[in-house]
C-alpha cells in the first residue's frame, strides 16, 4: 500500500518530459524532435569536405531548423560525419560579420559602415594602389569553400574586370599537386574514379590518407565492399585508418617517392605488370622502367625503413590484385616532391593495368567541398573549364562566352599563393583581397605570413566571421553569407556537381559572396558585361557553355533542378538522352586527354627534404587532421559546442614513448615545441602510434603552423606541411 501511495508522487509526465517528445517523421524522416518538426524538406550538398554528402534540410516556414543526412543521395546514402550533422550551428555563431567594417589605423578598432561606403572604399583604395604600383600590385586569395558560380565570378571580376594578374586559392594548400600530376599524366585534371570503386576493389591502397577521420563517409563505402578487400595504408603513423588496415606500411617520412619507384622496379622484376595495357594506352614506359632499375630492393628498404617481408607482401598484393585502387590525400599532396610522388602512384596503376575498370584507378581524394570547382573555374591556374591562358583559341572562346574583350585575358597564369606572399615581401604586392580562407592560421611558416600581412597597404577580408585570425589584420571586412544562406553548386571528389540551397536568413547585412562580387563589380564601373552574371543560375549556364568540348563538359545538364536529386558527375556533354549511370568512372576506353590519347609515365630522381633533423632539431614533425569533428582552422567547427565536446580541447603533440622517456616527458604535461621558425607550448601525448624520432601535431590549432617550413613542391607549388625538424623541451612551470 505504501508503494501505491509513493507511486502517486512520481511524475511520469510534465513540461520537462514533453520538451523531449518526438513526433513521427514526415517526408521520409524517422522520428524528429517535436519542436523542430519540419513542414517541408529540401536537400543541400554539405559545405565542409569534398565527399559531397547531401543533407536533408528540415524546413519550418521556409527556414532550416534541423537536418539529417539524405538517404536517397548516391554519395552518402543517409550518413554524414559530425561536421555535416552540425552544419547549421556555426551559422548562428555570435561572431558573425554583420556589416562591413573598416579599420582606419593599423591595430585600431573596426568601425561599421554601410555597403555603399564599403564598396566605395574598396574601389578607391584598390584603384589608387593599382594606379601607383601597377594593376598587378593587387592580388586575391580565394578558396575551395564557396560555390563554383561565386569563384567563377570572382575570377572573372578580379582578373578580367579589375585587372589583377595574380590570384590563387587555398586549394593550393590541398589539391595543387593532384591537379598538376593529372594534367601531366592524363592530359587533364581528371580524378578518374567514382565512389563505387571503393566497393569493387579487391586491393585498396590508401597513401597518406587517414580516410576514417578525414573522409568518414568514403570509409563507409570501403566497408560496403563485399570482397573482403586487402586494405593497405601507407602512412608513417598508426592512424585510425591504419588500425583498420590489413597491412599498415609505416614508411619513413618523405621516403614515399623512393618506395613507389622501388615497388615499380620490383613489379617489373617479378613480371607483375600489364604489358598489354602499357603498350596500348601509355607512353614512356621503357624509359621509366630503365629509370626505376636503380631502386633495387636494398636501396628501397634502406630508404623506406621497411622490413623486406613487409615490402614483398606489399608488392605481391599490388601485383596480384585483380582490381587494385590507389587513393591518396594530403600525405602525398603536401610534400616537397609531391607531384612526382602522385605521379609515381599513377605510374603504378598504369603499369599494372589498374585503370578504367571497376575498383581500380590512381585516385586523388579531394579536400575541400568545392576544391574541384576551384580547380576548374577559379580562373587562377587556368582559364575556366581547364582552358589555357596560353592558348589563343581558349582565350577567344572565353572572351566571346563572357562578352569581354580578349585583351583583358592574360596569356600566362599568375602567381601561385607562395609567390604572392613572396611578392608582398619584395614589395610587388601592395594589396590583398582574401575570400573565405584563413591564411594567418593555415599558411605554412605562419609567423612570416602574419608579418607580411602587416606590410600590406590594404588588406580586405571577406568572410562570414569578423573574428578569423586573418581578419585581425584586415583594413576592410566584407560580411559574407555562409553555406546554407546562398545558392550555387559544388563539385565533389568524384566529379559530381551538387546543389546548394538558400535555407537560412543571413544575419545582419551579410551578403552571399556572389552578391558581394556583383556589387563590387558595379561600383568598380565600366564592367557592363557583368550584367550576364545576374544570378548564380545564369552563371551556371555560362559555365556550362565554357565547358563545351572540354573533358569536363557538363553542358548536358539543363539546369539546377536536374542535379537536385542526385547530382551529376562530369563529363555530361550534350546532347544526351537523359539516361545515364549515377556512378561513372573515366578512361574505360583507355583513351586519355593527352594529345596522343596515352597516359604518360612521369618521374624524377627523389631529393631529400629541405630540412633534415640535426642535433639541435632532432625530431621530424608531421602535421595532419586531428579529428573528424574539426575542420581546418576551426572558424566554423569551433563554434559548435557539440563538436567541441568530441574534439580535443587544446593543441597537443604526439611523442613516441621511447623519445618521451629520453626527454623525460609525460602525457598531459605542457611541452615547448620549437622549430627554426617559431615555437609553441602544447600538451604532450605519449603514444606508440608515432614512430621514434617523429612527432605529430594536428593542423586545427593555430600554433602548429608557427613551426612548419615554407618549402614547396617545384611543380605544383603546394606547401610541404608534412615535414620539418623540431625539438621538444619540458616546459618549466613558472
Amino acid at each position: 500500500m505504501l508503494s501505491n501511495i509513493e507511486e502517486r508522487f512520481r511524475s511520469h509526465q510534465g513540461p520537462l518530459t514533453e520538451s523531449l517528445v518526438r513526433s513521427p517523421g514526415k517526408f521520409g524522416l524517422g522520428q524528429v524532435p517535436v519542436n523542430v518538426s519540419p513542414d517541408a524538406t529540401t536537400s543541400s550538398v554539405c559545405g565542409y569536405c569534398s565527399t559531397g554528402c547531401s543533407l536533408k534540410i528540415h524546413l519550418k516556414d521556409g527556414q532550416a531548423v534541423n537536418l539529417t543526412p539524405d538517404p536517397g543521395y548516391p554519395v552518402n546514402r543517409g550518413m554524414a560525419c559530425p561536421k555535416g550533422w552540425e552544419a547549421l550551428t556555426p551559422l548562428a555563431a555570435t561572431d558573425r560579420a554583420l556589416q562591413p567594417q573598416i579599420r582606419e589605423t593599423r591595430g585600431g578598432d573596426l568601425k561599421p559602415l554601410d555597403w555603399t561606403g564599403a564598396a566605395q572604399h574598396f574601389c578607391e583604395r584598390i584603384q589608387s594602389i593599382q594606379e601607383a604600383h601597377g594593376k598587378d600590385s593587387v592580388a586575391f586569395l580565394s578558396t575551395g569553400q564557396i560555390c563554383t558560380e561565386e569563384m567563377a565570378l570572382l575570377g572573372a571580376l578580379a582578373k578580367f574586370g579589375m585587372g589583377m594578374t595574380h590570384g590563387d586559392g587555398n586549394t593550393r594548400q590541398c589539391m595543387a599537386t593532384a591537379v598538376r600530376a593529372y594534367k601531366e599524366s592524363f592530359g587533364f585534371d581528371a580524378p578518374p574514379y567514382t565512389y563505387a570503386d571503393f566497393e569493387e576493389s579487391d586491393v585498396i591502397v590508401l597513401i597518406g590518407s587517414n580516410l576514417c577521420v578525414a573522409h568518414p563517409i568514403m570509409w563507409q563505402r570501403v566497408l560496403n565492399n563485399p570482397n573482403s578487400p586487402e586494405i593497405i595504408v601507407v602512412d608513417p603513423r598508426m592512424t585510425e585508418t591504419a588500425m583498420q588496415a590489413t597491412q599498415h606500411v609505416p614508411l619513413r617520412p618523405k621516403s614515399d617517392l623512393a618506395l613507389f619507384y622501388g615497388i615499380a622496379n620490383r613489379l617489373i622484376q617479378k613480371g607483375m605488370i600489364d604489358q598489354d595495357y602499357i603498350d596500348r594506352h601509355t607512353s614512356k614506359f621503357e624509359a621509366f622502367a630503365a629509370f626505376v632499375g636503380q631502386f633495387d630492393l636494398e636501396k628501397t628498404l634502406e630508404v623506406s625503413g621497411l622490413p623486406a617481408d613487409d615490402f614483398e607482401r606489399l608488392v605481391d598484393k599490388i601485383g596480384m590484385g585483380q582490381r587494385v585502387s590507389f587513393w591518396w590525400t594530403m600525405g602525398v599532396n603536401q610534400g616537397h616532391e609531391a607531384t612526382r610522388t602522385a605521379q609515381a602512384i599513377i605510374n603504378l596503376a598504369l603499369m599494372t593495368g589498374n585503370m578504367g575498370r571497376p575498383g581500380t584507378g590512381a585516385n586523388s581524394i579531394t579536400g575541400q567541398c568545392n576544391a574541384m570547382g576551384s580547380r576548374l573555374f577559379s580562373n587562377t591556374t587556368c582559364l575556366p573549364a581547364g582552358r589555357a591562358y596560353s592558348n589563343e583559341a581558349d582565350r577567344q572562346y572565353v572572351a566571346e562566352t563572357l562578352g569581354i574583350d580578349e585583351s583583358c585575358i592574360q596569356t600566362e597564369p599568375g602567381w601561385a599563393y607562395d609567390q604572392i606572399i613572396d611578392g608582398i615581401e619584395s614589395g610587388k604586392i601592395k594589396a590583398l583581397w582574401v575570400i573565405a580562407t584563413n591564411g594567418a592560421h593555415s599558411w605554412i611558416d605562419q609567423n612570416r605570413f602574419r608579418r607580411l600581412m602587416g606590410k600590406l597597404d590594404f588588406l580586405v577580408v571577406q568572410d562570414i566571421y569578423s573574428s578569423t585570425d586573418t581578419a585581425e589584420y584586415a583594413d576592410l571586412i566584407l560580411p559574407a553569407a555562409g553555406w546554407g544562406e546562398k545558392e550555387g553548386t559544388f563539385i565533389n571528389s568524384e566529379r559530381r556537381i551538387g546543389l546548394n540551397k538558400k535555407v537560412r536568413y543571413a544575419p545582419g547585412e551579410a551578403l552571399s559572396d556572389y552578391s558581394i562580387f556583383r556589387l563590387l563589380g558595379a561600383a568598380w564601373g565600366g564592367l557592363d558585361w557583368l550584367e550576364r552574371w545576374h544570378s548564380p543560375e545564369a552563371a551556371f549556364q555560362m559555365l556550362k557553355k565554357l565547358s563545351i568540348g572540354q573533358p569536363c563538359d557538363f553542358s548536358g545538364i539543363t539546369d539546377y533542378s536536374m542535379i537536385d536529386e542526385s547530382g551529376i558527375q562530369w563529363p555530361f556533354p550534350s546532347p544526351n538522352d537523359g539516361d545515364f549511370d549515377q556512378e561513372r568512372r573515366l578512361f574505360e576506353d583507355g583513351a586519355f586527354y593527352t594529345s596522343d590519347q596515352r597516359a604518360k609515365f612521369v618521374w624524377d630522381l627523389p631529393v631529400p627534404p629541405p630540412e633534415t633533423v640535426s642535433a639541435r632539431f632532432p625530431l621530424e614533425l608531421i602535421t595532419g587532421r586531428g579529428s573528424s569533428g574539426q575542420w581546418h582552422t576551426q572558424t566554423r567547427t569551433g563554434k559548435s559546442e557539440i563538436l567541441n565536446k568530441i574534439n580535443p580541447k587544446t593543441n597537443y603533440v604526439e611523442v613516441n614513448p621511447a623519445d618521451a622517456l629520453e626527454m623525460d616527458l609525460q602525457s598531459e604535461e605542457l611541452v615547448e615545441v620549437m622549430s627554426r621558425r617559431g615555437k609553441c607550448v602544447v600538451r604532450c601525448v605519449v603514444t606508440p602510434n608515432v614512430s621514434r624520432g617523429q612527432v605529430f601535431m594536428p593542423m586545427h590549432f593555430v600554433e602548429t603552423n608557427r613551426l612548419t617550413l615554407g618549402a614547396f613542391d617545384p611543380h605544383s607549388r603546394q606547401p610541404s606541411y608534412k615535414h620539418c625538424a623540431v625539438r621538444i623541451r619540458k616546459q618549466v612551470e613558472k
Partner: protein
Amino acid sequence: MINESVRTLIDELLEDQQQLTAVERFSKFHDEAPAVTPGTYRDLIPLGAPKEGEQYAFEVDLDACSGCKACVVACHSLNGLDESESWRDIGTLIGEKAEAQVHQTVTTACHHCADPACLNGCPTRAYEKDKDTGVVRHLDDQCIGCRYCELKCPYGVPKYNERLGIVRKCDMCHGRIAQGEAPACVQACPNEAIKIRVVKTAALHEVSRIGVSLVPGAVSNGITVPSTNYLNLSKNSKAIDSESIEPAHSHLPLVWMLVFTQAGVGVMIFSWLAGLTQSSFSLSTAIVGGLLFFSGLVGSVLHLGQPLKAWKAFLGWRTSWLSREIICFGAFGGLSFVFIFLLMLKPVPPHFIGAIGALLPVLGSLAVWTSVRVYSDTRRPFWSVGKNSLRFGCAMLAFGLIASPWSGLAAIPITAALLLDLAIAKGAFPELDTSTRLMNGQLRVGYLVRVLTAVFAMVALGFPVVSFVSLLVSELAARYLFFRAVEEPSMPGV
C-alpha cells in the same frame, strides 16, 4: 564613383538575401519523392522485444568503428538536446606499452545497467528500469536536480542541465525502437558499429561477478552490472586521457551543508550532554547548534535544481542513502526544534528535557552516518566508509566539544581527521594517487588552508569562539578537498 544604380543594386541584393526560395523553387521534386524510410538498419535492432529475464543492450564493434563520432552529434540533433548536450560520449584508447600500436575510439552512452546505481541512489525515484525493455529511464519531471546520480554512476552518464535544473540521460531512444526505428546513434553510424541486442540479465550478472570492466580504465562491472558489450577491444590499451588529472566539481552548497550540519549536530548533542552533567541546559548553546544545523540544511536545498520539488526526496528511502539522509536530517531538525522549544518553556522539568534530548545523539549520529553512506555508496575509494566516518564523525565531535565545557578534548578529533588528510597528501594510500597529486598540485592552496586552520583551531582552544571559527574554515576547506580531490570514475575521454 558610387552612383544611384549601384545603390539600387545594393538594396536589391540585400532584399534578395532575405528571400528564402528553396521550397518554391525545388519543392516539386521533394514533394513527389517517395518517402525513404530510414529502414536500412533492420538488422541493427532486434526483431522482437526482450522476454522475461532479458533486456535491450548496446553492442559496439570497436573494429567497425572508424572514430567518426557521428553518433554523438546525431544523438544531439535527433533528440532535440541543448547546444552542448548529447547522451553519447566519445573516448580514445591507445597502446599501453611502447610496442603496442592501438588507436580505438570508444563510443559510450548509458549502459542500461542491470543494477543501476543512478536508480538505486535517486532520492525521488526519478529513475525506473523499464520492465519490458530493461531501459533505464529518467523521469525528467520527477527529478529535483540533486545531481546525486552523477556521483553514483561510475560511467559519467547522467548529466546535469543547468538551464533546466535537472539531469537528463540516454533512454536508448526506446520510443524509436518501439516503432521499428533504430536509436539515433545506431541510425547515424556509417559503419554499423552500434547495434541493439537482446541480452539475458543473468548472463550480465555472471560476467560482472568475475571482475571484468567494460573497457580499460573503467570500473569493475560488478558495481552496476552494465549491459553494453564492446566487441574487438584491443588488449593492452589504455585511455588516452588516463594521465589527465583534473579536479572534480566543487559542489559548494554541499561543502557548506556537510560542515554546518555536522557542526550543528555536534553542538546540539554536546549542549544536551553538558546540560545533563551540569543539571542545567544552556539555551544559547542549543540555539547556536540549531542555527548551524538549519543553515546547513538551507545549503542542501539551495543546491537543488528544482528546490520546490524537494519534498519528494523521501520516496527513495528503500534504496537511496541520500533519501535516508534527508529523512534523518528532517527528523533531527524537528527534534532540535522541540528541544529548543522545551528549553524556552520555563516550567518544563529538566529531567524531561534530558530524556527528550537523549534522542539527539541517536538521531544526530544516524544523520551523520547517512552522510557518510551517501558518499561511500558511490564506491569511490577516496570516500570509503572508514574515511568518511573519520572525517564527518570527528567534525561532529570537534565542533561539539569546542562548544562544551570540555573544549580541550576537541584536539583529539581535530588531530584524527587532520592525520587522514595529511596521510592522503603524503601518498600513504596508493589507490588515492590522483587525490594525492591534486592535493599537492592544483588544490595545494586549499590543502594548506585546511591544515593551517586546523592547527590554529587547536592552538586557540583556550578561546572557544576563535577556535570554533577557525575549525569551521578548516572543515570547509576539508570538504572542498573532499569533493574536488576525488577521482571520478569514467569512460575514456578524448
